[in-house]
């Protein structure tokens, strides 16, 4: 209990605008009650947030009743009781519902005479693009297709915010929308009527762990019933269309509706970049240092026993063939979300170049040099330290350099699982179509990669013996 009081309350959000705004409100309102609270932004999809909540990596996050009923806890009985069975408290509705809906451009829908989802079935040639989560949800595309017998063949998964832009640009003909999406009005889209009442109700709620301190719970409850659908659409529009920071939009709402003020923490660009830099360096630095400690001995072992070495190189090579995104996601069940799984994934990625270059550097030492060293009467470890490793040092260093540059780039994906770093502004920038934000992550990441490259060139002068550079 005392520990729980001392701990910082962590509020998560999913990787879309509305979730970020609502989580920001929850964060600020808890903070205004004197509870130290942080917002861990854009951690991923529903399942990642739900499991992070169950594991206690976050304490609360915004969710929708339909998602809980269909996707997270399918079954019978009262939803609140089902959630309570998992040790989770569900708030009352925050006041608005954000359902899934299928939308089209108004002009196209009118030209084709499509008004309802039933009408959609008569046009098999339409190109559909759905958000990635909608593609595999139980209440998503597969069930929708079955319910309305939709014949379309051209169906692809795409990031939600990009899907809306693709729809507006005419690259796809229909996509899934959230009914509170600001783009519906902004891009003049129509929502096709769900005549068979396929989509369940998606009332917005907050979920939090039962062990959350009572005062934090009662602070969160102040949001119950306070946000109307119109207000939510407006706030989504401010963030997505006018690029106001979510924290500022949430603060304005709290000030107007609840009289809560001064709890927003809006970072300036310089501080934001500094914070992301620290996170990024932590991801790269720790993973690289751990890889160095493990991979150099593995490389030595691989050079010493060529047959086992082939097996080892094959194994670390195999890790490299798994797409980095998949490695990151595989880490979640093992290590949860945040920096730890990202560091573990980057560590695995860094192994191959270091192991391979260490092994190659050692095996590349000419046999007469190896013989001379042995004939001089130096024991094995002394030969390794005084002769073999110095001779292999250019190769080892090149391996570490490669690993570092790959790491800096791959670490941007860490933001997808809540690890922060330069990927965070890129991710948010993609979501908000904000080129400035994308560059805020991409430019420092590129600079850091160049810096790492240069650093290891310099390090080469210090580490590689002069005799090898003649």
């Amino acid at each position: 209990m005392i520990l729980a009081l001392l701990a910082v309350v962590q509020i998560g959000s999913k990787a879309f605008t509305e979730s970020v705004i609502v989580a920001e409100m929850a964060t600020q309102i808890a903070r205004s009650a004197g509870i130290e609270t942080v917002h861990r932004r854009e951690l991923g999809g529903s399942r990642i947030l739900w499991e992070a909540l169950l594991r206690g990596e976050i304490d609360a996050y915004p969710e929708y009743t339909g998602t809980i009923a269909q996707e997270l806890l399918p079954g019978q009985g009262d939803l609140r009781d089902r959630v309570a069975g998992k040790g989770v408290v569900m708030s009352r509705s925050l006041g608005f519902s954000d359902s899934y809906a299928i939308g089209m451009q108004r002009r196209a829908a009118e030209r084709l005479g499509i008004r309802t989802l039933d009408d959609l079935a008569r046009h098999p040639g339409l190109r559909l693009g759905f958000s990635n989560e909608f593609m595999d949800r139980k209440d998503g595309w597969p069930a929708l297709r079955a319910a309305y017998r939709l014949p379309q063949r051209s169906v692809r998964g795409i990031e939600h915010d990009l899907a809306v832009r693709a729809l507006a640009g005419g690259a796809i003909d229909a996509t899934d929308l959230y009914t509170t999406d600001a783009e519906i009005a902004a891009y003049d889209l129509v929502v096709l009527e769900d005549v068979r009442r396929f989509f369940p109700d998606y009332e917005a709620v907050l979920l939090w762990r039962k062990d959350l301190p009572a005062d934090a719970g009662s602070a969160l409850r102040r949001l119950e019933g306070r946000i109307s659908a119109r207000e939510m659409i407006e706030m989504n529009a401010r963030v997505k269309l006018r690029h106001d920071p979510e924290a500022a939009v949430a603060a304005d709402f709290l000030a107007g509706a609840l009289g809560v003020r001064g709890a927003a923490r809006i970072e300036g660009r310089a501080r934001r970049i500094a914070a992301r830099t620290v996170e990024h360096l932590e991801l790269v630095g720790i993973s690289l240092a751990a890889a160095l400690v493990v991979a150099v001995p593995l490389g030595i072992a691989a050079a010493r026993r060529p047959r086992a070495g082939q097996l080892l190189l094959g194994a670390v090579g195999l890790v490299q063939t798994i797409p980095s995104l998949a490695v990151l996601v595989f880490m979640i069940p093992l290590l949860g979300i945040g920096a730890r799984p990202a560091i573990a994934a980057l560590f695995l990625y860094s192994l191959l170049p270091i192991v391979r270059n260490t092994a190659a550097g050692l095996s590349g030492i000419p046999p007469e040099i190896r013989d001379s060293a042995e004939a001089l009467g130096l024991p094995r470890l002394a030969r390794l330290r005084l002769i073999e490793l110095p001779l292999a040092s250019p190769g080892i260093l090149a391996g570490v350099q490669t690993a570092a540059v790959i790491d800096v780039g791959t670490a941007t994906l860490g933001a997808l699982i809540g690890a922060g770093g330069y990927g965070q502004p890129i991710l948010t920038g993609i979501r908000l179509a904000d080129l400035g934000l994308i560059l805020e992550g991409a430019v420092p990441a590129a600079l850091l990669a160049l810096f790492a490259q240069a650093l290891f060139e310099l390090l080469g002068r210090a580490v590689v013996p002069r005799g090898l550079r003649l």
Partner: protein
Amino acid sequence: MFELQGVAHRFGRLGPLDLRVAEGETLAVLGPSGAGKTTLLRLLLALLAPDQGAVRFRGEDVRALDPAALRRRIGYVVQGGGLFPHLTAEGNVTLVARWLKWPEERIARRLDELLHLARLPEAALQQYPAQLSGGQAQRVGLLRALMLDPEVLLLDEPLGALDPVTRFDLQADLRTAFEQLRKTVVLVTHDLGEAAFFAHRIALLHEGRIAQEGTFEELARAPADPYVARFIHAQRAPLERLR
């Protein structure tokens, strides 16, 4: 010093053979490439273990000795010097002494003696192997082998890769050094003249066996078999044609 009894090594295509190296003598192991000369040296250094028979060093079976300690009692010089490219000449020469934690003054004293013996300019000590001439690298290789004052010196084609003039100078210096050192020396070469110039005794190796052992005169005067006769004739004939 060394005694080989029924020693054979299958992959080195050597033996079985018997051979004794007496204390203080210079023995040349002579033969064409592929005759097993280098395999023989590697057996003496315990870099290889014989499949059959035993190698004894001062009466002790080398298998019973700690190989690293044994090798520090033996100096080994290879063709081209076999220098470590990441260390200066001095670093190469003093590597093992420093690893053994010799005091600096002892290292300096020993270096002084050796520089004089091998006629190496002192400035060369600070050079890296890539900056040394072939003859200098070979001299540094010799210094490195002699640094710990070994009981016996093994040389594998020490003059093999040198141009004729350098070779001639180094040959003379090496013989002077051997005479001053009064060490047991085993020299491997394919060059009859070199063997005759350095060695008290020659062992001619042919297809992994010793075809004949003896002084140069003995080999020249009474070849043990047609191969010995051919080998000696092949190397002497070109010179005699000039007369």
